[in-house]
């Protein structure tokens, strides 16, 4: 999932960095004092999640957790992902500093997508676990698609890409869905205000009636 240095052409790197920077700016704008700690905790889990390895045949894949982070943090997933990826690049050697922008965009944007598309479903009386499962799986799938698109600009063939990236991540999507589903349903049951931090007023009202 981490794009290494020296593969993608410079314009793509620059474009990714600009888009990621605007995402981070939006995220930081929405970040007030009360929300710093949840963002830091999620950044820690994003940082650690990449160490949990899902065996997939010859390749090697790991959890991403961008779905969970997206559901909880909304746009603030961008700064959290940036910090997590920067530390992963420095400490573990995953990805690289020049590809930081593209990697942040590829992994954080699916999280925001989950926030925009799936968060409203949590208040429609549906099973929170199912929403969480789909958020986890969808976030990894979208991140894979974005990674494939980025690699296409580096002149890779689409079929080996689909095999190497997409198929390898199908088990990750399942595991990620289960982890995200259980985490979300647990948090929702025990501490629903976790999700109230970044919600629209009408969602907060729904919260008040639930809890």
């Amino acid at each position: 999932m981490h794009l290494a240095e020296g593969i993608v052409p410079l314009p793509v790197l620059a474009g990714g960095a600009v888009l990621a920077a605007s995402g981070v700016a939006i995220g930081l704008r929405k970040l007030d004092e009360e929300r710093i700690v949840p963002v830091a905790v999620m950044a820690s889990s994003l940082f650690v999640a990449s160490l949990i390895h899902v065996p997939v045949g010859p390749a090697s894949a790991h959890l991403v957790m961008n779905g969970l982070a997206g559901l909880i943090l909304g746009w603030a997933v961008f700064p959290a992902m940036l910090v997590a990826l920067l530390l992963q690049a420095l400490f573990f050697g995953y990805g690289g500093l020049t590809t930081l922008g593209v990697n942040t965009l590829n992994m954080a944007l699916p999280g925001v997508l989950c926030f925009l598309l799936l968060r409203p479903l949590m208040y429609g009386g549906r099973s929170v676990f199912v929403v969480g499962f789909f958020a986890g799986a969808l976030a990894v799938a979208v991140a894979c698609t974005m990674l494939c698109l980025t690699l296409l600009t580096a002149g890779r063939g689409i079929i080996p890409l689909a095999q190497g990236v997409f198929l390898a991540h199908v088990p990750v999507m399942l595991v990620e869905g289960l982890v995200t589903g259980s985490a979300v349903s647990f948090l929702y049951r025990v501490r629903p205000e976790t999700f109230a931090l970044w919600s629209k007023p009408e969602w907060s009202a729904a919260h008040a009636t639930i809890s």
Partner: protein
Amino acid sequence: MRPYLSACMKWRLKPAKLANPHLWCRLPACILKRTCCKYGAGWKPAPQMASPLALSKHALKSNAMLRALVPVLIVAAASPFAYGHALHLFASVSGDHIEGKAYYSDSPAAGIPVTIVGPDDEILATVRSDVSGTFTWHPTKRCDLRFVAESEDGHRTEFTIAAEELPRSRSAPEPEPSVIEVAAEDGPDDSDRSSPSSADLERLVAEAVSREVAPLREQLDAATHRTQLRDIVGGLGYIAGVAGLFALWKRRTSRSDR
């Protein structure tokens, strides 16, 4: 250390506070205040001792986010820290050929194309790693070699072998005539054959040493790329620090707004 503990102790008395993220932001400031008090006049040791275990219990009881994170951390801690996803490459000279290995942090990287690049970015050959991630290549000339491995899903790594590491015979411009010459000279005199010349001896020793040292170098290479516990803990510490600094900055700006 003591001001920090006493700040924590003060918190322990009101565990309900731990659930309030707003107050978490005040922890750095609280520590700072206590530190200042200690070296000023009014500092007194806290009345109650709190063991770290009791502190962490309280933190767990009253903070659901922390609790949700714990399984993740436990799984990560239980894994042998070799996990993750970065491609690495190692190559060494063994006799007249070069043996190399491509591996992910935790498993061999099979079927990875390795491009061998000479000086002036000239592509000398492309080999593919086998099931165990290894590949061999016979160098055609004695020069600096750069091995570039690139996987399908966007991982890339490089390894360089300097010209000095390659066997001496590579520098000979025309190796075949010299071999014939030596054979012709050696032909009539059988006594020379039992005692190899000093050049031969040097070559044999160099080969034997490189063969013996290769696994050690490979282990060393793998060990430097392994994820260590201190990296993980260090990273988490950085995140806490960044959050604390950001919180302080936010507080300062919100205060100046008022």
